[in-house]
């Protein structure tokens, strides 16, 4: 193991240009993937933010007794889809309208705005069908006058989300495949550059595992270094964009670590594949 480690590190020293080249290649292909990931991440969080505003508003008929309405609020709160239920009284509705539309303050008189029950749905229960379902259940209370939940835009939003998911998956897969292919051929170059060494190892009776070990370590290290550089470049891009254009979201620590792990894994597996292919061809 110590020898494998030494040989792996030696290969960086013996062929600094080739090593730098392959790390750079790995870094840039992972960078492209990271950028895509950032775009996808931000789109998703933007969509989620919009989605979180999906709300059902049930207007309570005038003259409804307060305890009937609050009993209903209790019932609705126990629906599995429901995140939060708020009872907005007539007075509160008026107050809110005054705040939001300050310049028209004087047109609002007490009594013109009805009380309402506002229902916010949990994440994962915001498809058009589910929203409609809850709305229908609400409408069964006989003191409910009218229900609004932005039917049209809920549907549009949902469609947008579906499209975004599919496009994201397709693009993500493509980017990942391209990275893997580029990284794989880079590593293949490194393996070919060391073909004479592999030949000698086989001549003197080194086992397959022994021959593979330095390459696997080398691939792992290159993948990891490439991943770190890619993450760094992504962060610089993100910070620059944040300063110049828009405030966006960056990968969480977990996502970042996952990205580094993926880089190391691609390097490792790419090396394993290349060395095995080479060994099969020469053995």
């Amino acid at each position, binding site marked *: 193991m110590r020898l494998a480690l030494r040989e792996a590190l030696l290969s960086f020293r013996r062929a600094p240009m080739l090593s730098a080249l392959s790390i750079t290649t790995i870094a840039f292909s992972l960078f492209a993937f990271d950028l895509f990931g950032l775009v996808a991440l931000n789109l998703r969080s933007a969509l989620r933010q919009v989605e979180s505003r999906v709300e059902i508003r049930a207007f309570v008929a005038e003259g409804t007794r307060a305890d009937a309405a609050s009993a209903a609020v209790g019932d609705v709160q126990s629906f599995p889809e429901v995140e939060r239920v708020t009872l907005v009284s007539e007075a509160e509705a008026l107050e809110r309208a005054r705040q939001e539309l300050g310049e028209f303050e004087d047109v609002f008189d007490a009594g013109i705005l009805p009380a309402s029950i506002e229902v916010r749905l949990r994440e994962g229960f915001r498809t058009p069908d589910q929203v409609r379902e809850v709305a229908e259940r609400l409408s069964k209370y006989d003191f409910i006058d009218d229900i609004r939940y932005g039917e049209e835009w809920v549907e549009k939003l949902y469609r947008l989300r579906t499209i975004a998911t599919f496009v994201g998956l397709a693009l993500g897969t493509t980017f990942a495949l391209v990275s893997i292919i580029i990284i794989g051929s880079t590593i293949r170059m490194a393996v070919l550059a060391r073909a*004479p060494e592999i030949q000698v*190892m086989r001549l*003197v*009776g*080194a086992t397959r595992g*022994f021959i593979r070990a330095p390459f696997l370590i080398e691939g792992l290290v290159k993948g990891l270094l490439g991943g770190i550089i890619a993450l760094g470049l992504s962060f610089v891009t993100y910070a620059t964009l944040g300063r110049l254009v828009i405030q966006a979201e960056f990968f969480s620590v977990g996502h970042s670590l996952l990205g580094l792990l993926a880089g190391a894994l691609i390097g490792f597996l790419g090396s394993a594949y290349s060395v095995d292919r080479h060994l099969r061809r020469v*053995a």
Partner: protein
Amino acid sequence: MSAMVRFTRVTKQYPKGVTALDEVSFTLDRGEFTFLTGPSGAGKSSILKLIFVEERPTSGEVKVIGQSSVTLTPKKIPVLRRKLGVVFQDFRLLPDRTTAENIAFALEVTGAPPKRIDPKVMRVLEQVDLLAKADARPHELSGGEQQRVAIARALVNDPVLLLADEPTGNLDERSARSILDLLCEINRVGTAVLMATHDLDLVRATSFRTLELHHGRLVFDAGTMASGATAGVPGGSST
């Protein structure tokens, strides 16, 4: 004593129908020095590759140090190779390592204990008379010296059989002679040597057994002369 290498009706065909060896049978004993001669393409390298399990026979059986080509699994190949040493016409040294490192490499990658590496390297360097060039890189050495490094590397794992594929092919006459002398010396202390060569002057300079191949067939085996199977002068038919 049982044979160290036994070929039993070995045929080797390469893709595209080229027959490199055709029903070849012979045996090599422990400690024996044997020449393998014949024109280029006669199948000399194929025989070495089969012994070394770089290739497998198309039919027939190759038995090397008790391991049969019929039953040998890929896992056992490295173990077998550690008992064999090989040198080639083109030396196959690693250009970015010194003489000592090239030799040590053979021990390191076969998992030798680090403490035992240096003494062993020094011992074989002395054996091939290259102690003074231990820190030289291959490009600083002459062809003959490079081949001696390659021989040292082949010897460092204490093989019972040394295979040499045209070891003098790239060398001038004097260097060639000294390589042959070195191989004879190695043989004298107990290692069997199988040397493929088409340099008949070298063959004639010694009185070792000679196997001659022609178009993949064994046409002459001085070792069988005693039994009267074949007559002739070693190498006589290939010039």
